[in-house]
C-alpha cells in the first residue's frame, strides 16, 4: 500500500513537470512569411505593376525568372525541329491565333498591358505576380490589356456591365502558393470558355471529387497543378509543346539527380506500378506499350463540363432577319451556334481516340503549305509508331473543325477576330477584312481570297485520372472493334490472329472430329446385334 502511494505521488509529480512545458505560440505552419505583416503591402495600390514593384523589393529575382519562361514570352523553340511555337506563333482550330487578338487573348498573359507589339517584355513591373499567387480568389483582370479593375469598370466598354473594383492590397497581403484555382483561371478556360479546349481540364478540377481526379481530389490527396508541374525558378515543367511521349525512367528519388520530366505518371509511380489486383504482373507488362493515361482515363470531360469536339468556322457570320448575331443552344443550354464563331459540337464523358505518340509534335505554322485537296490538315501532327521504341499508345482528344485559309497562297491564316474596330470579324462578320488585318499584322501575304479547309488538332489526354476501379478493363481493348481497334504495329491478343493458322487449325480440328464421327458411325452401322 505504501509503495503504491509512493508510485502515485511520483506519477503526479511527473505529470506536473510535463504540464510545466509551455505550449508553443500559435503560428502559421504552411509558410514562413505572413504577407499581411509586411509594411510594403500595407497601403493602397493603384495598379497591378505597383503591387509587383512591392513584391520585387523582397523577391528580387522573381520577375527576371518569369521573363525566361513561356508564360511570359508566349514563345518557345522546339529543339527537336526548331519550330517557333508558343501562343504567339501557333495556329489552332479554336480561336485560331493570338496575333491581332491580344486584347482578348492576353488577358491570360502573366503580365500587364500586352495589347500590341509595343509591350515592353523587359519590364519587371509588368510581370503579374498576383494572377498565379492570389489565394483570395478575388483577383481578376480585364480584357484589353489585362489590368485588374482598381475602380468599378464598364466591361466591355459600352455594354453597361460593371465589373466591381478589387482591393489589390487585401489580395497582395494574402499571396501564397499557386493553386488549382490560379492555374485554372486561365488553363480551365483555354479556347475561350470553360473546358472548351483541353477536354481534360475545366472548372470541375477546381475542387474535384475522387471520381473526377484521384490526385486532385479536394477531400483526398488534394494535389495542386504544381504538385506534378513542379516549377524550379518559375519555369513550369510538362509543356504541351514538347511533351514526354514515353518515360522509361524510374520514379524520382530525393537527392538523386534526375533531369527527366517530373510531371509524368512514371516520375512518381515508376515502371511497375501495379501491385494489387488480379494480375499485377500482366498489367505491368503493358507499361512498355501503353501510356498510363490510356487505361486510367476512361473518358475525358468527366466533371460535368462539356468540351468542344468540333468547330466549323465556315458557317460563322449568319445573322438573324433583323441583322443581329445569333446564339443557338442545345437542350442543356450549351452554345452550338454562334454567329461570331460558327457551329460547335460539344460533348461530355468522351471516350478518347488512341494513337502512338513519342512526344514529337510538328505544327502547321503560318507560311506552311496547306491544300484543301490534300484532305484534312493537321494542326499538330504527332510523331510515333509501334516500332520506334519511343512511343506509347496514348489517349487523345481530337479536335476537328473547318477554318479559313488562303486558297491562292495555300496557307493557313490568322484572322483578326476580337476587337472593337472596323475589321474584327466578331464585329463586322467579314472574313476578307478580318484576315487582311490579321495577316498584315503578322507580316504575311494574303491573296484576298478565303476558303475553308478541314483541320484536326491532337490533344494527348493526361488529366482527370479516374479511380483505379474505373480504369479501362482488359475486355475493352482485347476484342475486335475495341478501343484500340485501329492501333497498328502491335499484336493485341483477342483482336489479332493469324488467319491462315486459324483456317488450318479449325480445318484440322474439324477434320479430326469428322473423321472420328464417321468412324463411330461406321462402327454403329456395322455392329451386328
Amino acid at each position: 500500500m505504501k509503495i503504491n502511494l509512493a508510485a502515485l505521488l511520483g506519477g503526479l509529480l511527473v505529470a506536473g513537470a510535463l504540464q510545466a512545458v509551455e505550449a508553443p505560440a500559435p503560428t502559421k505552419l504552411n509558410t514562413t512569411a505572413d504577407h499581411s505583416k509586411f509594411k510594403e503591402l500595407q497601403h493602397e495600390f493603384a495598379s497591378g505593376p505597383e503591387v509587383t514593384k512591392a513584391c520585387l523589393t523582397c523577391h528580387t529575382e522573381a520577375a527576371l525568372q518569369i521573363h525566361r519562361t513561356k508564360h511570359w514570352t508566349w514563345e518557345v523553340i522546339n529543339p527537336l525541329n526548331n519550330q517557333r511555337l508558343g501562343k504567339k506563333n501557333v495556329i489552332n482550330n479554336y480561336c485560331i491565333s493570338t496575333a491581332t487578338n491580344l486584347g482578348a487573348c492576353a488577358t491570360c498573359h502573366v503580365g500587364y498591358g500586352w495589347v500590341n507589339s509595343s509591350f515592353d517584355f523587359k519590364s519587371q513591373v509588368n510581370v503579374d505576380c498576383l494572377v498565379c499567387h492570389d489565394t483570395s480568389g478575388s483577383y481578376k483582370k480585364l480584357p484589353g490589356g489585362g489590368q485588374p479593375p482598381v475602380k468599378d469598370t464598364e466591361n466591355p466598354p459600352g455594354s453597361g456591365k460593371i465589373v466591381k473594383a478589387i482591393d489589390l492590397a487585401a489580395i497582395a497581403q494574402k499571396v501564397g502558393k499557386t493553386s488549382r484555382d490560379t492555374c485554372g483561371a486561365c488553363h480551365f478556360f483555354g479556347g475561350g470558355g470553360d473546358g472548351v479546349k483541353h477536354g481534360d481540364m475545366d472548372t470541375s478540377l477546381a475542387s474535384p471529387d475522387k471520381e473526377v481526379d484521384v490526385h486532385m481530389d479536394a477531400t483526398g490527396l488534394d494535389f495542386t497543378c504544381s504538385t506534378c508541374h513542379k516549377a524550379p525558378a518559375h519555369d513550369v515543367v510538362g509543356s504541351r509543346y514538347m511533351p514526354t511521349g514515353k518515360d522509361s525512367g524510374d520514379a524520382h528519388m530525393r537527392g538523386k539527380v534526375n533531369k527527366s520530366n517530373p510531371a509524368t505518371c512514371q516520375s512518381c509511380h515508376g515502371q511497375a506500378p501495379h501491385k494489387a489486383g488480379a494480375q499485377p504482373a500482366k498489367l505491368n507488362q503493358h507499361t512498355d506499350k501503353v501510356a498510363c493515361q490510356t487505361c486510367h482515363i476512361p473518358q475525358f470531360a468527366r466533371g460535368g463540363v462539356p468540351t468542344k469536339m468540333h468547330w466549323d468556322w465556315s458557317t460563322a457570320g449568319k445573322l438573324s432577319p433583323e441583322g443581329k448575331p445569333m446564339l443557338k443552344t442545345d437542350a442543356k443550354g450549351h452554345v452550338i451556334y454562334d454567329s461570331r464563331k460558327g457551329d460547335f459540337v460539344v460533348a461530355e464523358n468522351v471516350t478518347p481516340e488512341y494513337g502512338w505518340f513519342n512526344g514529337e509534335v510538328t505544327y502547321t505554322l503560318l507560311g506552311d503549305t496547306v491544300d484543301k485537296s490534300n484532305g484534312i490538315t493537321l494542326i499538330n501532327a504527332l510523331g510515333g509508331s509501334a516500332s520506334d521504341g519511343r512511343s506509347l499508345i496514348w489517349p487523345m482528344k481530337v479536335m476537328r473543325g473547318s477554318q479559313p485559309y488562303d486558297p491562292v497562297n495555300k496557307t493557313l491564316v490568322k484572322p483578326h477576330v476580337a476587337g472593337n474596330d472596323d475589321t474584327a470579324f466578331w464585329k463586322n462578320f467579314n472574313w476578307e477584312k478580318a484576315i487582311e488585318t490579321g495577316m498584315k499584322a503578322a507580316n504575311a501575304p494574303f491573296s484576298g481570297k478565303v476558303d475553308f479547309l478541314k483541320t484536326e488538332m491532337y490533344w494527348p489526354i493526361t488529366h482527370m485520372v479516374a479511380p483505379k476501379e474505373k480504369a479501362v478493363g482488359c475486355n475493352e481493348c482485347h476484342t475486335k472493334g475495341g478501343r484500340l481497334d485501329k492501333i497498328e504495329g502491335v499484336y493485341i491478343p483477342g483482336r489479332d490472329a493469324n488467319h491462315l493458322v486459324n483456317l488450318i487449325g479449325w480445318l484440322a480440328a474439324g477434320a479430326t472430329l469428322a473423321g472420328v464421327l464417321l468412324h463411330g458411325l461406321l462402327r454403329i452401322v456395322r455392329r451386328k446385334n
Partner: protein
Amino acid sequence: MERIYIFTRFERFWHWAQALLIIAMLVTGFEIHGAYKLLGFAQAGQLHTSAAWALITLWVFAIFWHFTTGEWRQYIPTMKNIDKVVRHYAWGIFQGEPHPFKVTRARKHNPMQAQAYLAVKVLINPLIWISGLAYLYYNELEAAGMALNLGTIALLHTIGAFLMLAFLIGHVYLITTGHTVTAHLKAMITGWDEVEEQRH
C-alpha cells in the same frame, strides 16, 4: 475376363486433373484468341494463367513420378505389331474383331497409342509450354535481350493449341473403342482393366 490393375491412383489423378485443366485451357485459350465470347477476356486470361500454373505443378509431379516408377518406358516407341493395330482401327473394329494388342502391366498402351502420347509429350506439350511461358514473360525476355514478337509467340502457342484440340478430339473418341464402349473409361476411373483371356 481377367482383371488387371493398370492405372495407379496417382496416374488416374494426374490424368483427370490434366484433362480438366487442358479442357479449361482450351476453352479459355480460344476465347483469349478471340474465337468467341464466353467469360470475357479478363476472366478467361486469369483462369488460363491460373490453370497453366496448376498444370505446370502437376507436370512437375508427373515427370517425377514417371522417372521414379520407370513408367516413362511405356512411351518408348515401337513399330512392332503396329500394322496389326492400324489394320484393326481401319478394318477389324468394324468386323467386331478383338483388339490385336493385349494390355499388360508392363505395356499398357498399344504401339499406336504409345506413339501418339509420346508425340504429345515431346512435341505438343513443349511447344505449348515454351510459347506459353514466353507469352507470360515476354517483357522479361525482352529485358534479357531476347526480344520476341508477341505475334510470333502467340502464333506458336495457337498452333500448339490446335494440335492439342485435335489430339483431344481423337483421344475422347478412342475411349469408346474398348471391348465395350465404356471399358476404357471404367479403367481410367477405377484403375482396373478387363482383359480378354488369351485365346489358345
